[in-house]
């Protein structure tokens, strides 16, 4: 290797573990996050095996309950929430705005170790015997009735929350203070906008989660009533506080994905993103309105009818900016010059699956329909469409798109295209039947189910096998490319944006000369292919 890059600037393990280079920290995060994805995926595999037959014949009821709980906890807090921000965001945000690093590199490293600490708690929870409350920790079950390791699990989530807060804080400050000359707000790539908006949501919502978990711990340890009605508390209050965090959290998971997809589509369509400013406003609107819809998780909880109606209305309103984004991505293709490398296939897959996930969100936002659909597999299908079909596809699309930049290697294009397509098919086979199951009345979190649901469950489990293969494949060919892949040029996709102006992989301090930004982003033109 001739060129100096952040990858060979210090090769000892120690130089990696105490690094403050945002690019190296991004790589540390991506390794940890991938590991947790497979932990969560292993639990999912087990769930789908159990559900292949109506009887509970593979694992016991208690074990099943622990499986979906750990699946939810790991996938949400240890995989999807940190996924794009701490890996792609960490790596790219400073480069995209022309900075040498994040504003607080040590805080960034701390964020990683806090994540690991939280992860250790979670793994200990599993080893000790698991937790069976569901990822939602509903009281009074979680505080007074569960005989599992609720405190350990809550501690893990509590801790990892600080990792989110620190990363968010770091991004906010970096975007405000470290932009290169000429990088005005409306010249920032949409990915940066998405990270910025996500960060604000993380910083404002996560403390509430921390507090709620602390209150659960107090009630459980001291037996002092806060949420348990037997002790004068109100379990609905818990739900309000939990969803006050967890609904914004779903936008923490999808906004970064939208940012990634915007970058990819504009690049492979060779066209300026359609309606840049509207895209920015939409990101902001989702962030803001997202804080006001939490009650849509509680339409049958016993909250008053009027709150239900207000939350229903706001949930429809929050869907409008998402609609704008879908339309704008589509319009970006118009008169483009489109090619279909793997990142683009992932991105198009995202649009389609997010669309279905989002539209079914509207079924749930319609309070009267939700009364029938809530707590069934319809909800499970809804959120997997957005989170797995949407956000995970986008994450993988982003990993592929920036892989040459990050590693300096090219992966095998054909394998990548195939596994993206396979993922799309496997995904639909896994989760589409669940919409039907939900409408037919199969409740979620069920270890056993009525015989009449078996056919659809078998389809879903079969799909999960394909999906698993499609997730293992990138692990194989991407790892292979690390050792055998062709060397990547600085700008393999002929993309625009500051990150493509530096070498692949970038030098330690990103830019030899501080860049200046003369004009708006995405100066693509279809004729120039």
């Amino acid at each position, binding site marked *: 290797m001739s060129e100096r890059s952040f990858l060979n600037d210090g090769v000892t393990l120690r130089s990696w573990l105490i690094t403050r280079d945002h690019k190296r920290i991004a790589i540390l995060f991506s390794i940890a996050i991938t590991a947790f994805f497979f932990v969560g995926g292993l639990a999912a595999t087990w769930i789908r095996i159990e559900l292949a037959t*109506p009887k509970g014949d593979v694992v016991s*009821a208690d074990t099943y*309950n622990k499986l979906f709980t750990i699946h939810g906890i790991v996938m949400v807090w240890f995989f999807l929430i940190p996924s794009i921000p701490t890996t792609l965001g960490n790596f790219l945000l400073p480069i995209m705005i022309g900075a040498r690093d994040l504003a607080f590199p040590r805080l960034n490293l701390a964020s990683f170790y806090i994540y690991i600490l939280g992860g250790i708690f979670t793994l200990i929870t599993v080893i000790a015997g698991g937790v*069976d409350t569901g990822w939602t920790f*509903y009281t*009074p*079950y979680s505080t007074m*009735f569960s005989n599992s390791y609720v405190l350990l699990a809550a501690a893990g989530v509590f801790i990892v929350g600080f990792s989110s807060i620190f990363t968010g804080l770091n991004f906010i400050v970096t975007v405000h203070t470290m932009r290169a000359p000429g990088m005005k707000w409306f010249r920032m790539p949409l990915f940066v906008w998405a990270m910025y908006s996500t960060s604000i949501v993380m910083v404002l919502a996560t403390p509430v989660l921390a507090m709620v978990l602390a209150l659960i711990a107090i009630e459980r340890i001291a037996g002092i009533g806060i949420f*348990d*009605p037997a002790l004068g508390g*109100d379990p609905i209050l818990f739900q309000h506080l939990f969803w006050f965090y967890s609904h914004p959290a779903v936008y923490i998971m999808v906004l970064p994905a939208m940012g990634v997809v915007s970058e990819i589509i504009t690049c492979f*369509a*060779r*066209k*300026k993103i359609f309606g840049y400013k*509207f895209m920015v406003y939409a990101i902001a609107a989702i962030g803001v309105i997202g804080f006001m819809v939490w009650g849509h998780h509680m339409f*049958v909880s*016993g909250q008053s009818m009027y709150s*239900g*109606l207000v939350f*229903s209305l706001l949930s*429809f*309103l929050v869907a*409008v900016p998402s*609609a704008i984004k879908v339309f*704008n991505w*589509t319009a970006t*293709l*118009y*008169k*483009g*010059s*489109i*090619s*279909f490398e793997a990142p683009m296939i992932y991105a*198009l897959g995202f649009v389609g699956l997010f*669309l*279905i996930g989002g*539209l079914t969100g509207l*079924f749930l*936002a*319609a309070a*009267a*329909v939700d*009364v*029938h659909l809530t*707590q*069934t597999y319809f909800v499970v299908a809804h959120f997997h469409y957005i989170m797995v079909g949407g956000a995970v596809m986008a994450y993988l699309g982003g990993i592929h798109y920036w892989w040459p930049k990050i590693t300096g290697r090219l992966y095998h294009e054909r394998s990548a295209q195939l596994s993206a397509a396979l993922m799309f098919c496997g995904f639909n086979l896994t989760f589409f039947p669940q919409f*039907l199951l939900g409408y*037919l*009345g199969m*409740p979620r979190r*069920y*270890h056993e*189910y*009525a*015989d*009449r649901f078996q*056919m659809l469950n078998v389809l879903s489990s079969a799909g999960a096998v394909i999906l698993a293969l499609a997730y293992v494949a990138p692990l194989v060919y991407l790892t292979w490319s690390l050792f055998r892949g062709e060397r990547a040029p600085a700008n393999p996709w002929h993309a625009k944006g500051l990150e493509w102006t530096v070498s692949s992989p970038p030098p330690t301090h990103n830019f030899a000369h501080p860049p200046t930004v003369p004009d708006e982003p995405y100066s693509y033109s279809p*004729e120039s292919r």
Partner: protein
Amino acid sequence: MNETATNGFDFSVPSATTIAPSIDGLFYTLVALSAFATIAIVAALVYFCVKYRAGSSADRSDAHGARLNIEDIWIAVPLVLFLIVFVWSAVLYARIFTPPPNTTDIFIVGKQWMWKVQHGSGRQEINEVHVPMGVPVRLVMTSQDVIHAFFVPAFRLKQDVLPGRYTALWFQATKAGVYPLSCTEYCGTDHSRMGGTVVVMPQEDYERWAAQKPPAVEEKPHS
């Protein structure tokens, strides 16, 4: 489940209350709307992808040119549609929440992992709820331990059942029959077994049934 012959391939769910067809009406409207939106958007995506694929000879002049403010349209159209759906659903939601006067009340207590039922006449039963047809019925429910939820798919209705307070669910059944009932709020080990059946019977039958002393061995009413 004992009530229907099953081969794992049954894609229908009966509809047995006055509200159920209304909910289905909105549900299928949403299905139609979503299908339309999905097909339209996917069609546009595919069309553009084919027509403007790299190397095609399609006309790309003025690709970034000014055009009418199309964003306004695609803010307005979804917004209007969404508001219509909202109002429609709000009306139904209000109906679900407002029982008429003079309901027949049945008391239900959920506990890990069973449903205990007490009728106005004093007759009790477990994991089975007999209800009269054609008159408004209100279930007054509470829990002895954690949160449960009372769900009858054929009724298109569900309500959380909380400890320390009462929640209510009202309906007017329209079709005699035996319908599955499940607990849908996660409540611990046997959450998935906390089910039962709802038996809808003509009102006179119900009254006769409710007045009876429960037989020593409860015989299953067959439909």
